[in-house]
């Protein structure tokens, strides 16, 4: 399976996990992001994700490379689904294998945080009372230089 994938199909977590299995790994940390119904008082009916697919896959690969620089024995796989997703559907699955558990926990955390910074994927919330493109997770971030920190080579 491709280690870095944007897909319109439902994600199979086991496929993502299988692609990081390694004889020298002592740990595999898995992060699964799912569609949440309630955000404060807002009730989500369903979500729509869109992506700039070729660039998004490149940026996922870049996250994998950043992880390998920080945790040299790590192997990373990330699948992100796009299209229409229902409550509790899997939006993203990340698996990282490392020789020791601490690195696997840290690297999988790093991967999801970095996805929210640099991977061109957008979420449109369809609430019970309207719809909205989500600008970023805090709703406050702007990029005066034209990009987040540390993305221009």
């Amino acid at each position, binding site marked *: 399976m491709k280690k870095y994938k944007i897909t319109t199909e439902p994600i199979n977590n086991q496929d993502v996990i299988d692609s990081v299995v390694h004889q020298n790994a002592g740990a595999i940390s898995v992060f699964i992001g799912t569609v949440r119904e309630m955000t404060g008082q807002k009730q989500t009916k369903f979500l729509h994700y*869109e992506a700039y697919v070729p*660039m998004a896959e490149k940026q996922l690969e870049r996250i994998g490379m950043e992880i390998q620089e920080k945790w040299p024995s790590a192997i990373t796989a990330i699948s992100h689904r796009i299209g229409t997703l229902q409550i509790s559907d899997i939006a993203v699955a990340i698996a990282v294998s490392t020789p020791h558990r601490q690195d696997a926990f840290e690297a999988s955390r790093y991967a999801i945080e970095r996805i929210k910074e640099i991977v061109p994927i*957008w979420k449109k919330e369809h609430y019970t009372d309207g719809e909205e493109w989500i*600008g970023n997770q805090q709703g406050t971030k702007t990029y005066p230089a034209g990009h987040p920190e540390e993305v221009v080579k």
Partner: protein
Amino acid sequence: MMINILLFANLAQQAETEKVSIEVNSALSVKEVRTLLQQKVGKLTGIENALLAVNEEYVELTGQVKDGDTVAFIPPVSGG
């Protein structure tokens, strides 16, 4: 020469298209492309907060664009 422009999410929604082509006479900056784009499709609210990419790589606002390049305006991302 021809520059291809890609828009996404709320920017595509405002422009009512995801793809725009513009004809220019010489190489130019992403900032100039941003101005020409809005002359063509109208003002795009929030485009100044978009990330910028040329041929699928992030660039600065001063990044240079040449014939055949694809410029993407990437609204703040919300994956995960």
